[in-house]
């Protein structure tokens, strides 16, 4: 693809893997919103997340891919499964799955998709252009570069993110505790 790239980063059979991963992502995304059983949805979502993580690898963003696997698939989804088991109600599975407003929601979503597609159509020339040659930021040094960015340009945002996590922890504990 690009000769300036670091060795070892060359993906093989790019189109094949792209279509495989994105197909898996979209298909299991479809499963997420259609399954009756929330556990099945969660498992489908895990497949989506892992496929998206594979797409990150193909976009030379290994750090984001790793974070995606460790935080999303390993952490958040375990949390989801845990909660689904706690609130496991047979009743919910038997009941109606979609709310009464579903045609409106579907129509709105379709309109959104149409909007996207029209934007893509209009901006085709913009998005279709060849990517800039890869700098070493996308090579083996990616993690280091992202780290330098996080602690340099985005220092303040990083601290706020950690504060956000702290608040989230406290909130979750207070919310779920029976007696405080």
């Amino acid at each position: 693809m690009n000769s300036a790239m670091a060795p070892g980063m060359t993906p093989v059979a790019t189109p094949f893997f792209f279509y495989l991963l994105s197909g898996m992502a979209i298909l299991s995304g479809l499963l997420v919103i259609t399954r009756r059983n929330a556990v099945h949805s969660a498992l489908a979502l895990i497949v989506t997340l892992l496929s998206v993580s594979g797409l990150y690898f193909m976009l030379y963003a290994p750090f984001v891919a790793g974070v995606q696997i460790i935080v999303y698939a390993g952490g958040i989804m375990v949390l989801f499964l845990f909660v689904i088991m706690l609130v496991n109600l047979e009743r919910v599975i038997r009941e109606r799955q979609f709310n009464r407003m579903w045609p409106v929601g579907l129509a709105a979503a379709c309109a959104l998709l149409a909007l996207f597609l029209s934007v893509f159509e209009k901006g085709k020339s913009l998005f279709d252009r060849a990517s800039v040659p890869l700098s070493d930021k996308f090579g083996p040094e990616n993690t280091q570069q992202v780290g330098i960015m996080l602690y340099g340009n985005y220092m303040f945002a990083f601290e706020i993110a950690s504060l956000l996590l702290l608040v989230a922890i406290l909130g979750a504990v207070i919310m779920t505790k029976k007696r405080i």
Partner: protein
Amino acid sequence: MNALMSYFGSKQTPGVAGNQLWALIYIFIIFAGVAVIVICMNWLERKVLAHFQVRIGPMRVGPHGLLQPFADALKLLTKEDIIPQEADKVVFWMAPVIGLLAAFTVYIVIPFGPTQAVTDMNIGILFMLGVSSLGVLGIVTAGWASNSHYPLIGALRSSAQMVSYEVAMGLAVVSAILMTSLNRDGTGTLSMLGIVQAQQQQGIWFIFKFFPLGLIAFLIFAIAMVAETNRAPFDLPEAESELTAGFHTEYSGLRWSLFMLGEYAAMIAVSAIAVTLWLGGWMRPFPNGLAGAGWDFFFALWPGLTFIGLGGLAFLGVVRMPSAQFFKIQRVGLAIFALALAGLGGLLIAITIGAHYSQRNIIASTSAGIAYVYWFLLKVAVFMYLFIWYRATWPRYRFDQLMKVGWKVLLPISLGVLIVTAIVGMIL
């Protein structure tokens, strides 16, 4: 032929060099190898545990029960495949596969030697921790899909346990990664290869670095990894006396054996992380203290000598076996096994000596590769033995105590070690 030879003499792992043929060959070798090692571990665990417990363990199938794992495998494969009526069939079917995949995927970044790995990733250790943490999904879904109380409690226990110990584990790993940033070029790395090379460059295994900081981080990891793989004394998810068998209570036959395969594969994987991060990966002991061509040659002989020693032990078994007619087949079998081991050892020694005297590149790289893999696996084997030893010695923790150890003991200590390591690293 050229394609096959293309890899020898390369200074990179096949994945990094873009050598797809060899990457595939490595994947195949590693997967088959791990499966074989797991089967052997099964035999070893039963044998070693038996000797801890004044028993002799399996003795009937093959000489000294050597064929026991194959008999077990045959039994498990031919058992009736039971899926409970009320179970969620699809998820029940998928759960062991998830666990197994998570355990096996990790192996693609484990560096058995500087070039003996499938590939090397920029985010190697992050990838390993992430993928191995996916194993919990298999356990949780297994517990849920069984639709039964004991598996459900086991699954809830294990998810809480693995998530909490991952924190301490991750922090211990970070303190090792901090040490890599003390290289001469001043940049750290997450790559598994890079971590071993950093130890090579700094001339010290990280377990001894900033004594005792490296040691404490290593110990925290060593405790957390036992918890992470659900082994005694942290085997609460499958606590036999409390939850009958925990999350795999309803599993039998092939699916159950997949869980076992996944568990042992995960044990080997976490041991490999520990070896890579703190024990110098593929490096032989005392590369600085006992340097020189003579010492190099001496340590290069070890792989062959080990196999010859094992063959000798097996031959001792032949000699000590009762001479009754009944044992004749066993004696012959064991003797063949001993000869095979000794022959393998002889071959390895021949390669080593050949590499010492000949100038052929291919022999030298083969010999070096054997030594690397040997030292790596030897260190991993020590951990495997420790796993069995723990199991024989200690009672099981209770759930709240387990959480207490994880959050109130390991986490603060690992945080402290991390901070002190950072400060010490900055001063030096």
